[in-house]
């Protein structure tokens, strides 16, 4: 029946409009058998050509994981995950491994092209003047397919490669730092990741070097029923600086996909790491079917004096987000920052926030969180600020604002503020409000339609955080905010 066919087509185009990264790439794939056991862990390690110490590290994590329980304290609900029903390794077939971009499967290149990610070094992100160069590590399902600008970075002494390559080529650095910020047994998902992580990025910026360009990793889940477990490790040695961007998307699928990443940052004396994320995993359809379960452990260690770590995140995707990018402020005078925009629409559930753990003297931290809930979503900010006995002179300022769009969503704020030091000064403020009818009418009167008006007001609401993003990401994020809120009115 043509009418039905037409409806189906229309619905399909609507869906693609809503989540424009929902397409799938057809590739030949090298997959490990379904399920998880020691053999699979060994297989992953073997596929990666890892040394024995790494295999043992993974096995230890796996054994530990078997004794652990999935955490239940977050305000998210989802059916039990059958960890034996997933694939833990999937890689596009490429034999031998590509030496340059020309050897990468054109289908994969096309995928990144569609996603707007420049893999050719002469390309730049569109619409931004003057042209800024960004080095990209593209991770496709379980493997890193290409890393750009490697040569130029090498000249500056910066190591930017996939974590698999780093394990083989720079074992001394990996052994020293891997698991030093997020210990193997940190939490259920981090431990699982430690056992089965397949790829991710590795960055080392040597002493006194300011990384000459932005680094970025682009994560793409393509395969069905495949968990993505990437592992990122960034080390800024004394006096170094690096700005790193992370982007994520996945095809629209009916079943839920599991993503459990671990990111570790280490900043030594006077070093600075700026880590920005635009997370746009598939959020599920309008009925709440499908979508990525995003259980991520991100933690930065301000290990050195006067070091600084800044997290900026724009979270618009995933069916479930469970994510608390944190800073351990160990070095005296170190500084941690967390800037977050979390938008939930449809049936999305977000439980996200940060931990600022003040251990050193005169450590400072700043938290700006903007949560926007629409549709039937649940959006929770959960954060911890703590000052330990020795954290004299610690300072924190926290501002959490929530905006509700519609009366079927929820916005919640759960801060934990713990001080064990009298000279620590903590200030926390939180508000919840809606877009006022009068504000809306004012914008409509000036000629904006309802969705444009909401996008405008919301962009104003999140401005303090958008300002923290590198420019090209800020432009992208602004567009993403509008797209994410489509269908939130009426």
């Amino acid at each position, binding site marked *: 029946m043509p009418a039905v066919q037409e409806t189906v087509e229309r619905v399909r185009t609507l869906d693609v409009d809503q989540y424009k990264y929902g397409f799938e790439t057809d590739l030949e794939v090298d997959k490990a058998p379904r399920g998880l056991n020691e053999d699979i862990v060994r297989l992953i390690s073997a596929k990666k050509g890892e040394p024995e110490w790494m295999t043992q590290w993974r096995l230890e994590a796996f054994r530990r994981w078997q004794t652990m329980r999935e955490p239940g304290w977050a305000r998210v609900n989802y059916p039990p995950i059958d960890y034996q029903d997933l694939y833990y390794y999937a890689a596009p077939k490429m034999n031998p491994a590509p030496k340059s971009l020309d050897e990468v499967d054109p289908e994969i290149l096309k995928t990144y092209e569609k996603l707007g990610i420049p893999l050719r070094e002469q390309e730049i992100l569109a619409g931004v003047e003057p042209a800024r160069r960004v080095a990209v590590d593209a991770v496709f399902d379980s493997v890193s397919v290409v890393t750009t600008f490697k040569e130029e970075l090498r000249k500056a002494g910066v190591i930017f490669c996939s974590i698999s390559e780093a394990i083989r080529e720079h074992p001394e650095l990996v052994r020293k730092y891997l698991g030093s910020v997020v210990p193997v047994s940190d939490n259920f998902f981090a431990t699982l990741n430690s056992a089965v992580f397949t790829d991710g990025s590795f960055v080392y910026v040597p002493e006194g070097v300011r990384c000459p360009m932005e680094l970025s990793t682009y994560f793409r889940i393509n395969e069905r029923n495949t968990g993505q477990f990437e592992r990122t490790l960034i080390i800024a040695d004394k006096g170094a600086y690096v700005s790193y961007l992370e982007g994520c998307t996945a095809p629209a699928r009916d079943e839920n996909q599991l993503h459990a990443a671990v990111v570790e940052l280490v900043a030594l004396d006077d070093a600075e790491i700026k880590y920005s994320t635009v997370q746009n995993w598939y959020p599920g359809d309008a009925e709440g079917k499908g979508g990525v379960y995003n259980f991520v452990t991100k933690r930065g260690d301000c290990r050195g004096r006067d070091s600084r770590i800044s997290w900026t995140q724009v979270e618009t995707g995933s069916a479930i987000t469970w994510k608390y990018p944190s800073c351990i402020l160990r070095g005296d005078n170190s500084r941690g920052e967390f800037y977050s925009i979390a938008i939930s629409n449809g049936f999305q559930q977000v439980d996200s926030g940060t931990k600022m753990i003040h251990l050193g003297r005169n450590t400072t931290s700043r938290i700006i969180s903007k949560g926007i809930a629409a549709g039937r979503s649940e959006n929770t900010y959960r954060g911890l600020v703590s000052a330990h006995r020795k954290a004299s002179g610690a300072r924190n300022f926290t501002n959490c604002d929530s905006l509700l769009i519609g009366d079927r969503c929820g916005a919640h*704020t759960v801060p934990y503020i713990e001080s064990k030091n009298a000279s620590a000064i903590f200030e926390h403020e939180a508000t919840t409000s809606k877009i006022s009818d009068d504000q809306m009418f004012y914008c409509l009167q000036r000629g904006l339609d309802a969705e444009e008006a909401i996008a405008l007001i919301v962009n104003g609401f999140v401005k303090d955080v958008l300002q923290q993003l590198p420019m090209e990401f800020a432009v992208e994020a602004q567009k993403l905010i509008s797209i994410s809120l489509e269908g939130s009115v009426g």
Partner: protein
Amino acid sequence: MTDITPIRTQAETQLLDYLRHPRSSLPVGDGSVIRRADAIARLEREGLPNRRVEEWKYTDLRALLREAAPPAERPSAADIAEARAQARVFADVAAVRLDFVNGHLAAQDAPPAGVTVIGLAQALAEEHPVLSNLNRVDVAGGNASYELNRAFLSDGVVVHVAAEQAVAQPLHLRFVNRGGAPFSTAPRVLVVLDKRASLTVLESHEGDVAAQPNSVVEFVLADDAQLEHARVNTEAAGTIALSTITAVVGTRAAFRSVNLHAGTSVSRHQLFVAYEGEDARVTLGGVTVLSGTQHADTTLVVDHAVPGGESRELFKTVIDGEAKGVFQGKIVVRPDAQKTDGRMMSAALLLSPDATMNNKPELEIWADDVQCAHGATCGELDDELLFYLTARGLPREEAEALLLQAFIGEALELVTDEAIREAMTGLAIDRLAKLA
């Protein structure tokens, strides 16, 4: 991944033991609103709350209560006389007094016109209709401290104010504990205000014994009723005090409760407020002054279920020595509670390097047309202010005292009645003076 059956602590074993031989003769069986058996079953199943229970994260009762004291015996006439003579708090405020000694209703003044006072035992025996107002607040249900009161309920009183009655004289609920060996008490008070009634309730807890009181005072305000509640705790060192206030507020009702915490070794003071009628106003305030190894927890849930409610919470904590302060406050706005206006603030001053403050102010919001905010601050006395005052010639100690008084004064300002506010301010200043 099996559930581990926790090993019972000594206190848990003692509590369950006491419950096997209840001393109270209250009719609290399955047929009564109390249903003691449910509470006992819960204690058997869950034990005392510990830090793994989110609501008790900062007050691990299982660890803090090492030895559970037996329920208090009914006091002798001599004890009652001495206890009443000893009571100090609000002594200068003219009030109608209801005296509890060791958790038992021991003496009462004649109630003012329009007010009915009935002993809980009698009310239960008669199945008095006003008892349908017990256990009305959902969010309090299942709360460990509230349930323990139910399990150990020893005595209580029901106060009923008839419609339209504006009672001028405050009603003073006086809890005095006295004696040598530690004991526990579990009194329950129900105060019901009919439409447009108004009443002031004073509540004081004092005594010279390291007791383990667990009081529950429940307020029910019908439409347009007004209730002012001022509470002081100056119980002796060694005391482990649990207390719960619940309030149900009707349409346009106004409820105000201000607490001064200036005693005990360990305390957990809870407030649960439920909005049942639209456009009600609730103000909660508190001052807590701690030193030595004291531990004091204020936990509150303000539950907006209907439109137009307003709530204001202001809590101040001063912590010296190795003491630990806890504030957990949650504003809940349910889907129908549009136009809710909720504001909550918790401020703490840490005076010593070993002091600890844990703040957890929460918002849980399911309605879009609301204005809600919370704030929390934590720090030491403002150096610049101190300098300013000392530069004007004030000795440092006096300058500090002045700033501390100003700090807590903001919360005590919430007490409307001048005589009551002055009594509380006087006690707070005495307590602050003992910090130095």
